């Protein structure tokens, strides 16, 4: 019982922290609080460490692949506008490449 009450209390406090951070305009703090809440749930409520070892492996595997999805999936969108076009600063480079067609 005590464990559950403590976890619940932590979650409520973190929720309050999130709201406060939003009020103050600290986006990063909101993210940190959200990640902490997830950790509290995984460790406190789901008790991943008390389950079979496979549970930890599967959870980490899912997290790893989630990272791949987010990182490589957004790579294109975040690099697309900054593709170098021969700007006015680089006329010589552009000229050097023009026989490439």
């Amino acid at each position, binding site marked *: 019982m005590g464990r559950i009450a403590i976890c619940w209390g932590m979650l409520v406090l973190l929720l309050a922290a999130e709201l406060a951070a939003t009020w103050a305009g600290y986006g990063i703090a909101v993210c940190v609080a959200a990640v902490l809440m997830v950790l509290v749930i995984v460790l406190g409520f789901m008790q991943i460490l008390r389950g079979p070892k496979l549970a930890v492996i599967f959870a980490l595997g899912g997290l790893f692949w989630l990272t791949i999805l987010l990182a490589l*999936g957004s790579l*294109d969108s975040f690099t697309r506008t900054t593709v170098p076009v021969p700007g006015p600063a680089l006329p010589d480079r552009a000229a050097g490449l023009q026989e490439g067609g």
Partner: protein
Amino acid sequence: MAQSYLWQDGTLRSWLLTRDHKRIALLYLGSITFFFALGGVGAALIRLQLLEPTGAILSDAAYNRVFTLHGVVMVWLFLVPSIPVTLGNFLVPLMLGARDLAFPRLNLISWYLFVASGLLVLYGLFWGGLETGWTFYTPLSSDYSEGRVLPVVLGIFLNGFSSIATGVNFIVSIHQLRAPGMTWYRLPLMLWALYATSVIFVLATPVLGITLLLLAFERLFRVGVFDPGLGGDPLLFQQMFWFYSHPAVYIMILPGMGVVSEIVSTFCRKPVFGYRFVAWSSVSIAAIGFIVWGHHMFVAGESLYSAIVFSMFSFFVSVPSAIKVFNWLGTMHGGAIRLDAPMLYAMGFIGLFTVGGLTGLFLASLAADVHLTQTYFVVAHFHYIMVGGMVSAYFGGLHYWWPKITGRMYPEIWGRLAAALIFFGFNLTFFPQFILGFEGMPRRYATYPAQFQILNVLSSAGAGILAVAYVMPLVYFGWSLFRGARAPDNPWGATGLEWRTPSPPPTENFAETPVVTTDAYDYGELDARTGVADSGGAHHV
């Protein structure tokens, strides 16, 4: 002796409510054979249409529907499930030395999900039709298509849960249900391959699910996250779609590699050369396979950085595939090779997969891809992998385990003939398409410039041979069910645990739980146990 799983209780009800992995495998076998035939009819119509530059038999609209049907049915209702749900379902517990999969009820549910999804897809494809191609690119599929996008997309969504259920089942089974003494490095390579496949099932399929859900939302409400009218990005759809659909290629090919490893070892009577390399190459194909999807988008408007990163990873993924091919050749070296039908299929797989893999290098090369992508070169490339590779392995596996599944031998001569015919017909169908692609013939064209006709006619002729060759096994397998010679427990002199139980196996698989004491493919131990002198094996019928 306990009764075989086939006849223990013959009622229809006992089949439809079975939790026996072997019976579920047969239920799946029936369903995917139906879908294979349906997709094959689609392929036949495509090849007939392309006999004439102006289109021989179909209108543009009908052609577009037919190639969409061919793609959707073949990818999701045949290729993705094929080996895992039939041979995999049948063999995973047998190879592990277990009584069943970890979650037998979930296994049955996955079959029902599969059937439901198949019916939904068929409803969409036949009542109203669909003409977006199996890739469903937005905004064509979301705003412009007049076809039945929603039922098909929801069908595929359901199908995904069937895949996930199978994947979860296999992974947990392989972790938890290994017989005493069956360490990871004693697992047959088929299980390593299926494990890798299951990882992709579990971790890639949900992304397809959410992508199709977003598409359905956009289709339903005519507004959504990929809508260019709102400044949304249709390329994001492609990113998410290929996050699943490229690894899906490895879902299709990895189990085939597993089957080939088993067959090559048995028919060379030699342990697989470089066992650990082959095992880990399966895992690394699955892992690297997740980070190459962007190579489908080199001309789509993807950023330069993204294209370069994905091109580099795409080269990396071919390394473990090459490792496998050379290890199979190394296995053959110094073996005692028997050219039975399964081995012919396996060798066909090695050759055709190599062609498919090498042409994959063309498409991974950025500048070459710009010219070749979206043409028949791509069509030929992936058919070499999917049909030349995966379907050959599937047929090889069916021949190899047919005695175990049914308790009957198939007619060997016909098996060899069909294998040879498939190899020949396949090459005649698809090799001309490489040239067509280089010449610039775009894919998904209902009509084409007259200069491409000769090669198209050649390709269609090959397809005719291929069709005959694919019907042959259907006939002689059916015949063998009633007339085939009774199969002994271990007709090929193979080493796996599945050969240590009667053919067909009893419902509980093993009279007593087997204990494993040696590595996989230990023919010395086999001979010692069975008392057979080294005869080179061949005591089959």
